[in-house]
């Protein structure tokens, strides 16, 4: 295993540790744990960034240099990175750490799947002709930042649904520490807006790329189709909120359905035959 993959497999545990501290904070109500959790997450993302850059450099050292965004392993690593990056931004903006409990597990799971699943190859592979394009970086970055924003919205929606169990007479600290429903609803919506814009950009860059690689900007390949399905679901969600004024529980459920579509676009499509086969291993 190359050094970058070793480093990244250790980062997986750091995310688990930071999740534990966020959880401790929520259960014990001690702010110190929260600060430790944020500190560990910051250390982890620094190492994570270093690992990705190192992988990029190592690919050049073995003579097949390319950005580390070309297969399932690399995309999972990058997906976890975007989730944590967006999460830290939100934590900093909202000054609220309770969301860490719901978001860091997503990054941990993605990293663990990448590093420890027997079906995933962590070695650096050369680019096949179809991937040799400047569109690769733009396409992958927009798509995964979009996925990450939808992931965060999913986390906020879960929190919203959990928060509904909170009643004034109840004394569960965990529930008390979750922000007000209104704030969660708003944050979830804002993340969907960001995700929707990025997903649109991701589909567009993919489409322009497909036009030059396969000769058609749209070929109803399963991954294309599923990204369109995801786009349609979130478009319906935005209309339901902006025009029909849906809020709260209904929107939270919408966001969870939307994120399931994202996950299917990402993983499920691999079980259907199509043109995007290089993202499978």
């Amino acid at each position, binding site marked *: 295993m190359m050094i970058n993959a070793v480093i990244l497999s250790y980062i997986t545990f750091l995310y688990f540790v930071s999740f534990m501290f966020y959880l401790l904070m929520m259960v014990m109500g001690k702010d110190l744990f929260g600060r430790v959790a944020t500190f560990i997450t910051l250390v982890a993302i620094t190492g994570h960034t270093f690992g990705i850059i190192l992988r990029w450099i190592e690919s050049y050292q073995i003579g097949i240099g390319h950005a580390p965004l070309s297969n399932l392993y690399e995309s999972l690593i990058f997906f976890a990175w975007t989730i944590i990056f967006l999460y830290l931004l939100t934590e900093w903006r909202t000054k609220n750490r309770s969301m860490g409990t719901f978001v860091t597990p997503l990054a941990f799971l993605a990293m663990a799947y990448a590093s420890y699943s027997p079906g995933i190859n962590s070695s650096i592979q050369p680019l096949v002709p179809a991937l*040799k394009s400047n569109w690769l970086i733009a396409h992958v970055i927009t798509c995964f930042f979009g996925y990450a924003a939808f992931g965060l919205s999913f986390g906020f929606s879960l929190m919203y649904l959990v928060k509904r169990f909170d009643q004034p007479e109840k004394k569960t600290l965990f529930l008390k520490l979750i922000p007000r429903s209104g704030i969660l609803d708003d944050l979830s919506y804002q993340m969907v807006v960001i995700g929707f814009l990025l997903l649109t950009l991701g589909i567009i860059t993919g489409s322009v790329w497909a036009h030059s690689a396969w000769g058609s900007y749209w070929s109803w390949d*399963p991954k294309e189709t599923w990204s*369109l399905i995801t786009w349609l679901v979130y478009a319906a969600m935005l209309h339901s909120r902006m025009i029909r004024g849906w809020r709260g529980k209904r929107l939270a459920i919408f966001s969870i359905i939307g994120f399931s579509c994202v996950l299917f676009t990402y993983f499920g499509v691999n079980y259907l035959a199509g043109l995007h086969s290089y993202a499978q291993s």
Partner: protein
Amino acid sequence: MKSNLGKRSDIIWDIFSSVKLTMALLIILAVISIAGTVIPQREGAMEFAQRLSPGLVRFFNSLQLFDMYHSLWFRVIIALLSLNLIVCSLKRFQVTLKLFQALPRPDRSKPFENLPLQRNFQVEGEIQEVSGRVAEYMRGQYKKIEEKDTKKGNFFYGYKGRYSLFGVFVVHLSVLTILMGAIIGSLLGFEAYVNIAEGESADTVTLQKSRVHAHKKLGFSVRCEKFTVNFYDTGTPKEYRSDLSFMDDGRVLKKGSLLVNHPVTFRGITFYQSSYGTIPGDRVRLIVSRHPGEPKTKTLGIERGHPLPLPGNEGQFEVMEVHGNLKGMMGPAALISIKPYQGKEVRFWVFKNFESLQERFPKEMFQSTILNPSAFKPYTFYLKEIQSKYYTGLHVNKDPGVPLVWMGFFMIVMGLFITFFTSHRRVWVRVSKDQGKIRISVSGKANKNPVGMERELDHFVHKLEDLFITER
């Protein structure tokens, strides 16, 4: 009768102007698309259909379920969505235009009702002087300022970001533009493919859409000069490259290298590297033995159309035809023609798998001259191998709708940005006399992002306060 008709068109208008319909159509499209990824489409459908009962296949076929994205009913749904989108946009546009043009009177008192404490503050000074400075500051912050002096005080109204109201129409228009591009592409464009062997040229391509393999003349010809494929050490492909020449009237007008991700366009038709393969080439290796049984044999290479002298110099021989699998069952074969200096020409096929053919077919068959490798005495010919050559598989495409689609992409990004990240912000300020001092009240409203608006108002009040503190 007339009113009845009017009522009916009203109902239709109401149906198509409802967002419920939009959401229903979006969800229906999503669900259908899911079905389309589960049921194999087009090329994949054949294999899938074999596992179904004939009745089910007929049922699937009648509903066009094996090519549902191009089926009539799928297009009808898209058309309904477009109609819904147009009607909704038209309906909303009137409201938006009113909102856009509206200039509320600055001296409305409603915005100042229930104003939180921090939006009110007192300063010292003359009312006209204070008003002047407030107005000056506002002009720097907002696009347009309306003023009104009344007995109740001096009122100011400012706004910015009015164009944000139109973002959603840009998005809707962009969706229609993309669909229009797709329609133009499917009406005026074509998708086809063609395989060209190295050194050969083609002037017709096979259309992909039609079930019967219709051909289309290009109006020029394409020659594949050379095809190369490179591999990494691991065995995965690194590069496919076709060197192409575009010709008309026998003259080469353009040369270009075609790679994956680097298509080549000639006269509005674009060529893409899509596949490759090998076919029997023109060079064969033959084993020639003189006098049957004699161990002295000769292996030689010969190219189709280039005659060589016989080893004993009785005349010349030539390869007329090369076949990868003669009659679809006899395997690789070459047609040899021998022209002796004296006597008549002799022609016969030689086979690579001659021994196994002799077992499979009656012996008498190989007595006839055309199948007898020893037809020209005293020679016997054997086919050792046919050297293969590459052919390149090209995807050929003409799509005049693409520029519209690109324009739609640009518009949708712009539109989404305007819709979600800019807002129409309106601010009211009142400067009034209050117990010998001057009171300034600030109120505001935005069409979205209320949190951001609150932040802006906080900042605005802060700046105004600073304006009067520095003086003291």
